[in-house]
C-alpha cells in the first residue's frame, strides 16, 4: 500500500464480485444476461436502421453513415481488448490491413466471393494478432502500446515490400463489377446496410463477451492483473482470447472497407491517425468498456470529422485531425468514462436520490 493519497487503487470491484454477492449499486442496475440485453440492443439497431432508411436518398449522408457504422464496429472490436481488457493496442490497423488484403487477394486471384473471403480474413487477422501479442502481453501499459506501435511500423515496411500481396506503394485496386456476390454495389444504401450489419455483428459479440466469463476475466485483468493472477485467472490466455476476437472482427471490417473503397495502399490502411488511433479515440469518447459507447462515439466523431474536412479542408490541411487531437486530449483529461459511462453513473446517482 503506498503512502500517498489518491495513488492507492481500492480493491477491485470486479474481482470481489467473483467471490461475494454484488455491492449495493447492483440492486439499482441489475446484471443482465445476453438475452436480457437483447431488447435494448435490438432497439438501438432498429433505430440505426431507421436512420439509414431516413437518408436513403442522400448519397453523401449515406456515405458518412456507412463510414460511421463501420467505425462503430471497428471501435467496438478494439474496445474488447482496449476497453474491457485495458490493453492499449495501436496495432489494430495491422489486423485491419490483414483482413483487407486477405479478402481482396482471395477475390482477385481465386475468385472467392468476398462474403466467404471474410472468414479466412478474420481467421488470419486473429492468428497474426495472437502471434504478435503473445510475446508482448507481459509488457506493462505504455510499453505494450509502444510495441504495438512498432508492429504497425514493421507491418508498413513489410506491406510496401510485399508487392505481390499489396501492390506495394502503388497500391491495389479492385475493378468495379457490381453484384451481390462480389460485395460491390452501385448505390450507397447497400453499403450503409452492409456496415450496419457489421456494426450489429460487433455489437452482438461485445454483448456476448461482456455477459460472459471472458468479459469478467478481462475486466479483472484490467483492474488488477496481479490480483487476477492470484485469483487463478490465466491472464495470458484471457488476453489472447480477447485479442483474437477483437482482431477477427477488425479483420472483417478491413475486408469490408477495402471492398467498399476498392483502392488502397499500405500506408493508407496502416495509418495510425486514420485508423489505429481513431478506433481508440472513438471508444474513449463513447465510453471505454461500455457496450454502446463506441457506437455513440462513432456516430458523433465521424460526421463531425467529415464536416470539418468539408468546411476547413481547403483552408487548413489537417484541420480535421487537429480537431480530433484536441478531442483526444480533452477526452483523456475530462472524459475518462466517456459519454455512456458518465451517463450511466449519473443514472445510478439519480436513481439513488430519487429512491429517498
Amino acid at each position, binding site marked *: *500500500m503506498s*503512502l*500517498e*493519497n489518491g495513488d*492507492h*487503487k*481500492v480493491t477491485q470491484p470486479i474481482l470481489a464480485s467473483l467471490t461475494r454477492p454484488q455491492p449495493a449499486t447492483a440492486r439499482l442496475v441489475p446484471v443482465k444476461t445476453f438475452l436480457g440485453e437483447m431488447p435494448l440492443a435490438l432497439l438501438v439497431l432498429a433505430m440505426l436502421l431507421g436512420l439509414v432508411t431516413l437518408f436513403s436518398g442522400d448519397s453523401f449522408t449515406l456515405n458518412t453513415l456507412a463510414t460511421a457504422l463501420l467505425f462503430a464496429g471497428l471501435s467496438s472490436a478494439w474496445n474488447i481488448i482496449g476497453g474491457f481488457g485495458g490493453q492499449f493496442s495501436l496495432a489494430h490497423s495491422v489486423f485491419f490491413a490483414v483482413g483487407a488484403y486477405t479478402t481482396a487477394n482471395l477475390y482477385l486471384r481465386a475468385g472467392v466471393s468476398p462474403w466467404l473471403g471474410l472468414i479466412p480474413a478474420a481467421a488470419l487477422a486473429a492468428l497474426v494478432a495472437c502471434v504478435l501479442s503473445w510475446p508482448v502481453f507481459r509488457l506493462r501499459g505504455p510499453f505494450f502500446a509502444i510495441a504495438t506501435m512498432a508492429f504497425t511500423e514493421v507491418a508498413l515496411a513489410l506491406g510496401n515490400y510485399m508487392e505481390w500481396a499489396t501492390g506495394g506503394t502503388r497500391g491495389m485496386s479492385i475493378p468495379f463489377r457490381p453484384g451481390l456476390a462480389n460485395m460491390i454495389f452501385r448505390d450507397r444504401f447497400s453499403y450503409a446496410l452492409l456496415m450496419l450489419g457489421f456494426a450489429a455483428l460487433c455489437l452482438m459479440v461485445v454483448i456476448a463477451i461482456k455477459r460472459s466469463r471472458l468479459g469478467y476475466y478481462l475486466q479483472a485483468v484490467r483492474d488488477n492483473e496481479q490480483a487476477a493472477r492470484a485469483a487463478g485467472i490465466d491472464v495470458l490466455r484471457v488476453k489472447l482470447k480477447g485479442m483474437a476476437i477483437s482482431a477477427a472482427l477488425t479483420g472483417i471490417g478491413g475486408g469490408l472497407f477495402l471492398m467498399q473503397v476498392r483502392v488502397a495502399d499500405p500506408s493508407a490502411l496502416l495509418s495510425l491517425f486514420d485508423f489505429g488511433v481513431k478506433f481508440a479515440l472513438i471508444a474513449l469518447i463513447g465510453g471505454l468498456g461500455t457496450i454502446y459507447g463506441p457506437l455513440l462515439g462513432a456516430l458523433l466523431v465521424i460526421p463531425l470529422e467529415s464536416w470539418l474536412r468539408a468546411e476547413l479542408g481547403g483552408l487548413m490541411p489537417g484541420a480535421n485531425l487537429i480537431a480530433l487531437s484536441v478531442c483526444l486530449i480533452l477526452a483523456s483529461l475530462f472524459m475518462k468514462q466517456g459519454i455512456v459511462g458518465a451517463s450511466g453513473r449519473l443514472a445510478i446517482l439519480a436513481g439513488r436520490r430519487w429512491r429517498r
Partner: protein
Amino acid sequence: MTNPVPALLSVENVTAGYGDATVLFDAAFEVHTGEIVAIVGANGAGKTTLLSTIVGLVAARAGRIMFRGRDITKRPAHLLPSDGLALVPEGGRLFPFMTVEENLTLGAYSPASRQGLVARRDEMMQMFPILHERRQQPAGTLSGGERQMCAIARALMCRPTLLMLDEPSVGLSPLMVERVFEIIEGLARREGLTIVMVEQNVTEALEVADRGYILDHGHIVRGGDAAMLRRDRDIQETYMGL
C-alpha cells in the same frame, strides 16, 4: 495532568484513509518537547497511516494537526523538513540506486538544511561508523540494520526538532532491534530530540518510551505513562503474549 507548556505536536481528532476506506478514526494524542512517545498496535491498526497523515503524504479528512503552534494539517509534505519535522518511513525507503553518502546528502535537500551539509554529514558518519565504511555503496545493497541506521541518519540531516519513526524494528534481528532502540534513546537523551515512534514491538517500545498510546483498528484506545502501560494486565495479554 495538565501541562502548561503547549505540546510540540498535537494531533486532534484526525480521521484519514485511502480511497473509499477509512483507516484512522478520530485519532488524538500529544507529544511534548524532549519526550519519547510510542504509539503501539498490531498489524493493520493504522500506524503507518497515522504518521503519513501527520507528515502530509495522506490527506486528513477531518481533524487538525498542530506542530510548534502552527496548523500543518494541509501543509504539503515537502515543506515539513524545513519546519523541523522528519519521518523515517517504514523500511527506511532509501534511494536504492544512490550511494549511502548521496542518500545522506539528500536528507539535507530542504533550503534550511543546506548550510553546513558536509559537516553534518561527517557528524552522521561519526555517529554511525558503519555508514562511513559503506559510504560509496548503493543503498540497496545494505543489510536491514544498516538500512535503518542510514535512514535515521538521513532524517537527521535536516536537523529536525521532532523525529518520527515508522516501525524502526521491523524485520531486524533481535540484536539489531536492541541497537536501534539504543540509538533512539540516545537521540532523545543526549541530542534532546523529541521522538514519536509507531511500533508493533510493544514490549521494547514501551520500555524506551516516556509515554505511550495504544492504536487499535484505527482508534486510539489507551494512553498514558509508558511504565504504567507496561504493567497493565490487559495490554500484557493482548500485545505482549503474557
